[in-house]
């Protein structure tokens, strides 16, 4: 099966299709993790993105139940150098190709992913269309027309569609757990829920547009703001809610949750040229001076300058490009990080943040 990736600047990559057939638009991005393709694919933050893996050999260990990060795949497409149809791992239950097909996701292999990566690096993440199928479907003119209709991510709310519709508990709630946490689902990864659970939290997941009063009435000890896709600025409903919650209940945010907290604190966000996506990003904890190797996935970033330093303390910074990676509010119990302490995939260096959250809830309880 032939397949094509067309970028908005007209660059075309021809390859071989695996997974589903058809076409789909999204933003072309790359991820530099050498392992974890399954977690990446099922991370809802990739909603409307066409993911290129820089590691060339993908599919090697197949797909297994335990590594799924959400209820499905939200990415628009998957691009690799060489897809492996013969996985070898004792946990593997099916091939990546079959998994993509079952989830109606288009995959392409046999393209020069390093050339694509360098292109994105130099020109920036851009709109793209991925297509797999017969000649007619792959006609570049057709694809150009389809791509022209696609609005891209900036200024759009692409969270609402993927957030759960009604509140629901995560896992088995028990009396043994010390805390009750309300988690906003902007596209939450399951491992965050697992780690909150393991830290002693009975977690309830709420839709992205849940209002503050509902949370405050629920008798929670803390609020978690999840990761999620796209631009934070259009999510005004969430920003309003967070503003109302701050000071009344401890708040912890990750990724999009961090951006929303920053916006609620009066900050602003901007789009990075090609984002941070991978498992090797060095982040320095400004308090301990120690460096954590972190898992990251974000295209937008909080503007350091716009934050009021009287209200917000910078806690973490990216050593590669000095971008903002974490904040802590000075007057209210709230903190957040841009990266993914829940890893999955990626290093476990930052798991301590979940303890910081429970400590914060503990302190707040005492007061």
């Amino acid at each position: 099966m032939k397949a094509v990736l067309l970028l908005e600047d007209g660059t075309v990559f021809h390859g071989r299709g695996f997974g589903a057939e058809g076409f789909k638009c999204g933003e072309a991005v790359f991820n530099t993790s050498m392992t974890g393709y399954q977690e990446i694919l099922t991370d809802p933050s990739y909603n409307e993105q066409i993911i290129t893996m820089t590691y060339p050999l993908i599919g090697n260990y197949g797909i297994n139940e335990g590594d799924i990060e959400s209820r499905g795949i939200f990415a628009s497409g998957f691009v690799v150098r060489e897809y492996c149809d013969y996985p070898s791992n004792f946990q593997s239950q099916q091939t990546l190709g079959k998994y993509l097909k079952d989830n109606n996701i288009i995959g392409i292999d046999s393209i020069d992913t390093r050339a694509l990566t360098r292109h994105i690096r130099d020109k920036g993440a851009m709109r793209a269309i991925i297509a797999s199928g017969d000649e007619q479907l792959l006609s570049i003119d057709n694809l150009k027309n389809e791509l022209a209709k696609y609005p891209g991510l900036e200024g759009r709310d692409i969270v609402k569609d993927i957030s759960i519709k009604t509140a629901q508990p995560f896992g088995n709630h028990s009396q043994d757990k010390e805390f009750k946490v309300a988690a906003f689902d902007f596209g939450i990864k399951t491992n965050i829920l697992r780690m909150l659970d393991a830290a002693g939290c009975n977690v309830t997941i709420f839709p992205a547009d849940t209002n503050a009063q509902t949370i405050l009435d629920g008798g929670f000890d803390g609020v978690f703001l999840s990761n999620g896709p796209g631009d934070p600025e259009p999510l005004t409903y969430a920003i309003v809610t967070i503003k109302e919650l701050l000071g009344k209940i401890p708040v912890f945010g990750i990724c999009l949750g961090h951006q929303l907290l920053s916006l609620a604190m009066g900050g602003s966000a901007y789009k990075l040229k090609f984002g941070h996506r991978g498992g090797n990003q060095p982040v320095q904890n400004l308090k301990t001076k120690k460096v954590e190797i972190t898992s990251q996935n974000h295209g937008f970033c909080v503007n350091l300058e716009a934050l009021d330093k009287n209200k917000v303390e910078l806690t973490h910074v990216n050593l590669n490009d000095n971008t903002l990676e974490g904040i802590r509010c000075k007057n209210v119990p709230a903190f957040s990080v841009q990266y993914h302490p829940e890893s999955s995939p990626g290093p476990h260096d930052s798991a301590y943040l979940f303890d910081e959250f429970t400590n914060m809830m503990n302190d707040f309880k005492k007061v």
Partner: protein
Amino acid sequence: MPRDNSIKKVLVIGSGPIVIGQACEFDYSGAQACKVLMEEGIKVVLINSNPATIMTDPDMADRTYIEPITPEMVEKVIIEERPDAVLPTLGGQTALNTALTLAENGVFEKYGVRMIGADRETIERAENREQFKAIVEKAGLGVAKSFIAHNMDDAVKARDEVGFPAIIRPSFTLGGSGGNIAYNNDEYERFVEWGLSLSPMSEVLIEESILGWKEYELEVMRDKADNVVIVCPIENLDPMGIHTGDSVTVAPAQTLTDKEYQVLRDASIDIMRLVGVETGGSNVQFAVCPKTGRVIVIEMNPRVSRSSALASKATGFPIAKIATKLAIGYTLDEIPNDITRKTYACFEPSIDYCVVKWPRFTFEKFPNTDPTLGIQMRSVGEAMSIGRTFKEAFNKAIRSLEIGRDSLSNQYIDANITDVDLMEKLRQHLWDRLWYVAEALRRGISVAKIYQLSAIDPWYLHNLREIVQMEAELIKNIDNIDVDLMRKAKQYGFADSYLAKLANMTESDFRAKRKSMGIIASFKRVDTCAGEFEAFTPYLYSSYDQECEAERTDRRKIMILGGGPNRIGQGIEFDYCCVHASFAMEEIDVESIMVNCNPETVSTDYDTSDKLYFEPLAFEDVMSIIDKEKPDGVIVQFGGQTPLKLAQALEEAGVTIIGTSPDSIDRAEDRERFRLLLNKLELQQPYSGTTMDFAGALSMAKKIGYPVLVRPSFVLGGRAMNVVYDDANLERCVAQAIEASPDHPVLIDKFLAGATELDVDAVCDGHEVVIGGVLEHIEEAGIHSGDSACSLPPVTLSDDILKEVKRQTKLLAMELKVLGLINIQYAVLDGEVYIIEVNPRASRTVPFVSKVIGVPLAKIAAKIMAGKTLKELNFTKEVIPKHIAVKEAVFPFIKFPGVDTTLGPEMLSTGEVMGLSTDFGIAFAKSQIAAGSKLPPEKGTVFISIKDLDKKSAMEVAMPLHKMGYKLVATGGTCDAIRGIGVPVDYVKKVADGRPNVVDKIINGDIDFVINTTVGAKAIKDSFSIRRSALDNGVPYVTTFEAAKAMVKAMQSLQTQGMSVKPLQLYNRSSK
């Protein structure tokens, strides 16, 4: 955290000679360490006995002590230099063990020397099996069930716990020396005894077997601020049970999910912290059960290692360099990443290609040893290749190895092997197992079945299956191959030479066809970051992907072809020369382009040359680079036989080879042209002739008389070279020579028994010749020059002979219009000078000579090739050193049970050492100690058994030994000969004469020194057990009479004067 300014002078301990398990990776790491320290303005004191390394070049350190790496000698250096700190983590196990002993003896404390990188407790925690086990358990993981045994009783108890098969590993040895797998009681007891005798602490570890599990290594770095990063995970293609040094390995890990990988990562970090490696690089090895995912920690090395060199080359993250910076106080986040320039070393490299490392074996040199791979490492070198896919990297690795194979084709094995035999082959772990795997796949045997037999992970087997399927498609369609198939074949890494064979074309015709189809190599950069940041370092590999990242500059450029994987006969000496060529180009402002595929070396460090192409040294790969870079010239004379073999094809392809012309090289190599050359110059060689078969050889032998020297042409390291004394052996040896170099004539030379051999190195610019050095071999002619000890300057030759040798050298160099280096081997017998061979290229002795005379010959030669003259370079007069340097070879016999230790015309040594002194005896003694031989004790019993030829000179060793107070024992004829000269001696039985005999005495510890010289196949066989038992029981021994004389001189010198240390820089200064 900035640098620790209290460190002003650092002692760096090197790793000594190249041996199996410890090769030029420690030259790479040591050279990086010295470079970093020098750049920081820290005084560097280096001790290393290996003269062939870049790190022992006089400008790599302030003080370079080429001395044996023993606690005694290191202490002497400390007393002399009083360094603030010692860096023991960059010189392999040798440096670590030496430092540990010095720490235990309180030497560091006494002289106020700090250990940086790793201290005594850290080393002990990592190396002591029981302490390490406790640490692993603390990190939440397990180790294989294991027990320490100090004697057979302990071992029997352990056996009951672990069952069979049981793994037996002696503690504190290199490269798993003495490690074995026992399947029954007999083997078990034998292996335990052997292991106990090998371990310096008489300690063995008995372990449960985890054969067949997947094997991984993680390279870890930690800084003072407790930042820890993983540089690279490496996965073994081969299962547990094959030493990782002997396994085909792949980076990054291929078959682990992220969650599985993170378990290994977390464990590595925890272990690093618990062992307490404060700063630097370490590696942690794991076994993972393929059925359950259970993880077991195998071991941890608190130092840089062979795999850290591999990981450095595989990722572009220079572990040794960074480890050194961390050792002097920097933290990872303060050290810039050279490649991206914008980011720092505190990150984990992400790679966007696949790396395959393949070990290189030399079992053909040890025909009496079992070639099955096991837990004791026996490979002598390795090649690494980089490709966009495993398949591409794998096929490139095959041709990088230079073993005469360019594919997985069944032409290299018995293609008619029965299925039953084939299955049996898959069960054995043979060095060429993957050709049998491919054949099995070709025959449709299932991946599941092959996995069951070979325990090679199905992921690799499926990749090989795809290669075999592509092979079938190519065989079918080669005559009308289209663009798509051609591209796919090249993307799979198939060699032009292989495809040309299929298509019945010459390689260059096929290459032209491929290029006409628009299928050309594109080059990608190794950048540590998978393209996320721009790379400023041109470290490149080829692929057949779309985009090419090589950028040609307008500078004048010279390409240097390296030597490929280390092997016996072609090792670090040639890498040394290539690196010097590169340095030379920098000094004369010419761009240097290095091509090599050996991950252990300095030449493949990304900052050695302006550009590094990590590629096989095959015609097609070299030509692809030449097409891209269009160099002004190519140097083929520095990398040993590997690039020389390409010279003709390159020249035919229109490439400019600089230096001595390939035609001149041919005049020296081709026997007939060589004879004409000597006739013209009126020089003589031992009577010689060539033949293509045994009949010719027989009539020639009749004509010139035995003994004769039989050898193939166009080989290096004396492959299949033999001294023959009778017709029966002539037949066998001629057959071997034909096999080693088919289609080329076999050379039959008169063997000059008892002659003194000389090696002469010289440089020539076409107008002038300057002698670099004349080396006198200590062993007589007939022993390969790479295996002989030798002395510079010569100690026994008259001035007239030396003058004549120099005259002939100059004559030959001028006649051959040498531009660069020339090496000539002479034999001197009864005042006559004979020419054995002429090599108009860099020789194995170039680094040794350069260091002894204090002149960088290779660098000078490279500049001459680029157009400079000796006059311009200010080297017009031979330097005669005022000191004496003895070079000694180092042998791998201990790794090959059952192999004889006699020397002959076939080279068997893996490395070399140098002993320096103003006294020959002391220089020789140092060379022996450095080579790992124990010297005879001051008092004791010497056993002598010498061949008839030596008996007339028996007095020369028997008398001085007697005078020094040694008791002598000897067998029959030797005993009579010694009695005949009036020296008291006791008679002892030969093995054939019954018991108790000399071997019993050796085993019982009644003999302290063995002198055993033999001749002829039968005598050699009869006395084999004497030499082997001496080796296995650690009794000093010599196998030539000349070495015996030298050893006696050494013993005399040691009785009258002690050993002192002096840096190379001071020796060199006094020679000028």
